[in-house]
């Protein structure tokens, strides 16, 4: 009998949360200290939008990196306060009930619930009290120097192609049996994550993931309003 532990990996954006990384970046950029600065920072986020759209079916790291460049020079105080505000006032109301139900089911089945998000830690951490089923949050970390953001994300950046080595390392650290673990994803870039896990599931999949799910005969869940 296999006594190893199992996990349920949830890609936050699309399966648990309605809003993605661009919305969060736009919120923070649009609330920078000075008015001119707000316009400039929003410009960076606007640059990230087409990248997100064009390359987002495959790899979102570039778009995420560009979106986070908008924070360069913003103080940690401001980013932390605005992140809390965004999580409290916006993200909290954009938690998908069906996603929470999936987490409950994963818990009942004895899986360790791991939430994977493209957002930065300062945004996601204030949200955790509203997602009490999460055992571990894995998300991006913004780099700060001297109290100011450099605009860079610390490696590895979540949402790219590096899922396989990361998952193997994570499974080894936590003694996880990936073949018996579950993963839920909603977008094309989640394909590699889902294909590495024994029991993948596509949730409200976009075009790329839907096609892949059909080909690989993965279960597909469609949330209903």
């Amino acid at each position, binding site marked *: 009998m296999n006594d190893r532990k199992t996990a349920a990996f949830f890609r936050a954006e699309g399966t648990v949360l309605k809003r993605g990384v661009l919305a969060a970046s736009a919120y923070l950029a649009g609330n920078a200290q000075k008015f001119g600065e707000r316009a400039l920072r929003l410009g960076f986020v606007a640059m990230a939008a087409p990248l997100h759209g064009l390359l987002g079916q495959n790899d979102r790291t570039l778009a995420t990196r560009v979106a986070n460049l908008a924070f360069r020079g913003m103080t940690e105080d401001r980013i932390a*306060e605005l992140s809390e505000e965004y999580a409290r*006032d916006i993200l909290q109301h954009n938690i998908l009930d069906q996603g929470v139900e999936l987490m409950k089911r994963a818990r009942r089945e004895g899986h360790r619930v791991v939430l994977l998000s493209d957002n930065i830690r300062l945004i996601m951490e204030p949200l955790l009290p509203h997602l009490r089923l999460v055992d571990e949050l894995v998300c991006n970390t913004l780099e700060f120097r001297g*109290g100011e953001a450099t605009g860079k994300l610390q490696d590895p950046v979540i949402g790219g192609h590096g899922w396989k080595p990361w998952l193997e390392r994570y499974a080894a650290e936590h003694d996880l049996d990936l073949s018996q673990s579950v993963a839920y994803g909603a977008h094309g870039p989640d394909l590699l994550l889902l294909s590495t896990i024994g029991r993948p599931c596509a949730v409200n999949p976009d075009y790329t993931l839907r096609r892949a799910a059909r080909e690989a005969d993965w279960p597909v869940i469609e949330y209903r309003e």
Partner: protein
Amino acid sequence: MANPISIRRTYAGRHVLLTGASGFLGKVWLVMMLDLVPEIGRVYVILRKKALQPARERFEKIVASSPAFAPLHDRYGADLGRFLVERVELVDGDLAEPDLGLDPAVARQLERDVDLVIHCAGLVDFDPDIRDALTTNVDGTEHIANFVERSDHAALLHISTCYVSGTRNGEIPEQLIPDYAPDGHPFDTELERRDARASIERILADHEGDEKETELHKQALQQIRDRGLNPNNSMLLRNITRRLKRQSIKNAMIEEGQRRAYKRGWPNIYTYSKSMAESLLIARKDRIPRMSILRPAIVESSMSYPFPGWNQGFNTSGPLSYVLGTWFRHLPARNNNPFDVIPVDYVARAITIAGAALLEGCAAPVYQCGTSDINRLTVERACELTALAHRRHLRDRGSTPIERVLLSRWDAVASDPEHLLSTENISSVADGFAKLMRGLPKRWPTGLHRGAERWAKKADSVRDKLNTIDRMLTLYLPFIYENHFVFHSKALREHEIEEPEFVVDTTDIDWRVYWIGIHMPGLRKWCYPLFEGKTPEKYVPKIPFSLPQQPAQAPSGAGLRGEAR
């Protein structure tokens, strides 16, 4: 490093005389000691009679109404009166009087009993009437020093301020310099006091002259006419003349104080008078060997004791942060200038440590208590944190949609005083606009003129408000723009303290958590209402409080129950 100090063992059975117990800092220290060190002997509290209210009644009112006493109310409930009578001895006194205004028998008793004097009393307004500053801060300190000299074994801890250093830049060590003046030139404190007193007499004499009387009389008449009142009403004329004279004397006294302070390099009358008080004490070092001076930086809302965010009255950052919550946006500040704020409970603990060190005989001559050397908060960071705190408040509780949507996103920024949107420039624009409105061609319809006059009045009001802000900013410029102070606070850290609740470790202050979550809500609750002419929330203990008539247990120094001379 010397042996660790145990606060509880050191203070057990020791008698402390406290001045300034009605002030922000004195009150927090008193409550902290009574709450956390109940082993302390007796605390003699000197309070001045105010509006014919003796010390006992004043203290009773303070305990019954000040939120600072909440921990004691919570702990002792109906027994608080009995506990206080056992621990606290109230003494009617007046520091302005040479013998502290004490009854001779009471004075003798205190001189025998007291182990430690903590001199917290002081006038903390930046630019008060020089007479008040000299009387309270200089003469009061001298009188306390006289008392300590006469006492059998009392040590003295004098509470000063880091900013006695004046308009200097850079690292400010913990150092006592006799007859110090920031400009570096020789300064004779006694001579300065005599000179200042002579100037005061001169100003008073000038106001008694016929020429001045006539001038004030004319001004009073003009005011009466401007208000459309009867100029023949002699009583009204006399009253207004008297008021104008009082105001004129006060203004002249403030100007004289500022002139003296600025001339030798102090930014205001407060630091000038506190520095002179230090010089007086340094000159007596041989006669009062057990003496220390504690210099806190900018004392602000409590971190955790008596409860998070406790604040009282018009403090240093209050007016500044209040203004930053309005449409005023550009705070003149130099980047990277430290804004040396320290929570009041940290300073109360520092007083406790310095006092214990004096009692143990291992005290340093001077302790500075600030944050700029090891956990620096800069002016621009304080400005941004203030804006973020206003944002949080206005978004949730702004009273109008404009406040919730627009003002909350209208962030204050630290900028150069010469910024395009400086108060001076906006004020000029408002002034120009008012003139434009009042200068419309006469042939234009009356309705337009009436409307224009309304707009002109609004512009006048904006200009007046900006001028008030400008005057206030001028007072703060030495601290936020002109000078760059870094105060060393090493001496306090040299003492190892056994009880963790008394350790002063300023590195544990998370400025964002403190400023947005504790300090600003505290200011909003306890101080901003005062700026708006309102009364802050009243504190009512769950169990009504009153002091019992007699002490439950007669102490060794019994009999000092507010005996006024």
